[in-house]
């Protein structure tokens, strides 16, 4: 057990009659948009939204904040490990890897055996996927970043932008979740887009 274990969302216990539930920082806005939620791997996950099929045909915004996000430092080569969905070299010696929620503990443990500094950042980042044919248009309205993956301002806040399955994953500080959701929704609605639940894109890891 590490002294930094308390930073990991998967260290919760259900002793004493408590049932800790994790919520994304976008949750309130999604609830207002009519999201249906399901509890998965300890997280309250927005699985569907009204009108999501139409949104998906234009541009959909999908909250993937429940995906595991792990920071690795000191690796000489880009980090790879079984279970890692995306590995992004932020800068020399600093890598960010994303994995499915069910794999977070396993991936983190494996990485910790090979690297001296591994920090579970799941609680620190929100991840917003932009999917659909108008995804590039929405991204252009949010940021000047275009050589991807890249790090820089997205709607004026620091973020990492990754390419994934023909769309984009914006990984940013979770404390900006409410704000960035509003900014992204504003951009998406102009193209007939809107929120989409994770089930509509195969659980998010398609």
């Amino acid at each position, binding site marked *: 057990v590490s002294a930094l274990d308390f930073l990991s969302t998967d260290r919760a216990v259900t002793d004493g009659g408590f049932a800790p*539930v994790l919520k994304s920082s976008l949750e*309130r806005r999604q609830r207002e948009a009519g999201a249906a939620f399901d509890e998965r791997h300890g997280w309250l996950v927005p699985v569907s939204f009204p009108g999501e099929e139409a949104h998906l045909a234009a541009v959909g915004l999908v909250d993937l904040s429940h995906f595991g996000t792990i920071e690795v*430092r000191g690796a000489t080569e880009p980090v790879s490990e079984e279970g890692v969905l995306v590995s992004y070299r932020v800068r020399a010696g600093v890598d960010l890897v994303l994995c499915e929620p069910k794999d977070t503990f396993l991936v983190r443990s494996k990485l910790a055996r090979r690297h001296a500094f591994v920090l579970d950042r799941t609680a*620190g980042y929100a991840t917003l996927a932009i999917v659909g044919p108008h995804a590039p248009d929405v991204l252009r309205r949010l940021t000047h970043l275009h050589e991807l993956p890249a790090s820089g301002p997205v709607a004026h806040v620091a973020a990492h932008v990754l390419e994934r399955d023909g769309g984009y994953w914006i990984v940013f500080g979770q404390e900006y979740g409410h704000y960035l959701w509003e900014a992204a929704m504003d951009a998406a609605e102009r193209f007939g887009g809107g929120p989409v639940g994770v089930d509509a894109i195969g659980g998010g890891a398609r």
Partner: protein
Amino acid sequence: MGPCQGKLCHLNSIRVYAKETRMSEEDIGTTTARPPWTPVSMGLLAGRGHTPAKRTSMHHRSKDMGATIFWTGVWRRPHSYTQDTQAEAKAVHDSIGIIDVSTLGKILVKGPDAGAFLDRLYPNRFSDLKTGRIRYGILTTDGGRIFDDGTIARLSDDEYYVTTTSTGADGVFEWFEWWNAVWHMDVELANVTGQVAAVNVAGPNARRLMEKVCDVAVDNESFKYLDAKHAHIAGAPALVLRIGFVGELGYEIHFPSPFGEHVWDALFAAGAEWSATPFGLEPQRILRLEKQHILVGQDTDGESNPLEAAMSWIVKLDKDDFVGKWSIEHVQERGLQWMLVGFEMPNGRAPVEGGQVVVDGKSAGRVTSVRWSEQLQKTIGMAVVPIQFAEDGKTFDVKIDGTIEQAIVRTRPFFDPDGERLRS
């Protein structure tokens, strides 16, 4: 050459020169310096304007409970939950108050040199701090000026958990990174400010509440004042710090942000039998002033040094070195000229914050903080005064609406001066 390195002033200079010499701009020519233009896509310019705002993971719960939200830096925070801020402060003194302090900066310092690194940054020592214990620290610039403060908890031999002020979080992290690059020490730094939410549960019944939600013993013997312990709070993993900015028995609970609403709800459910009350930033300011706990940036300014901010006890000049040591030694050698003191107003009138301290009809200092304390039934404050006034019971003049009023110096906390309630 200014900060723009000629990129902004260059063209204007050519035009001024052309006008004065009656030469054409073309004949004068220009350099190849490029203006600081960064391409911006049209897409970025289009659309409704949005103002980036940070919100804690309990923000919406606070709004649900009636909080008045206001800006503090880039954060949206509860100012108070009712119109009666004194009642919120009183709830902390009488039973239990709960405040969202997630905005505090939080930095991990990890590595074999972590203790030595902090020893170089802070005027006091952290390498001798025992695992599981907490110590207060202030940060000073190279010029020995106070620019931030917070607590430092030692989590293991090579891991420390540092908190900073809310508005200072990013600046302190950059400061740490900069010095780490300069000193080449074996230290890793991580800013976990947004990642970790924090709630302070304070008041005489705080322990009773904690007994219902915490899976480690919280009695005074097992969990002492300035202890830091790992625990689960309502099942959520947490680091619990026994500290007390607001002057009552208190537990500051740090946990992953996405558990925010769960933990918040569990604390209020557990505290319902003692009428646990949410309190905002304004009641917190009353409470901390009763203890004369400083607010960096409010009670200090760009010229404040630890010795003249009544914190000589924190400065360990016997250390080999720390950032600002030379400058603080210089202050000591030249002698103290000012002092930050507490004061109370015998007639109850309140000078404005930033108001003048007056000596012989001339401005000779400033009032930094003022509040009415319902608990103490008096107007209390802090002020920077000339050193000759910095003794308990001495009086000095302040200007209120053009008239001179007398203030009485109080160098010890107004409330619980011996800290018995904090340590209870």
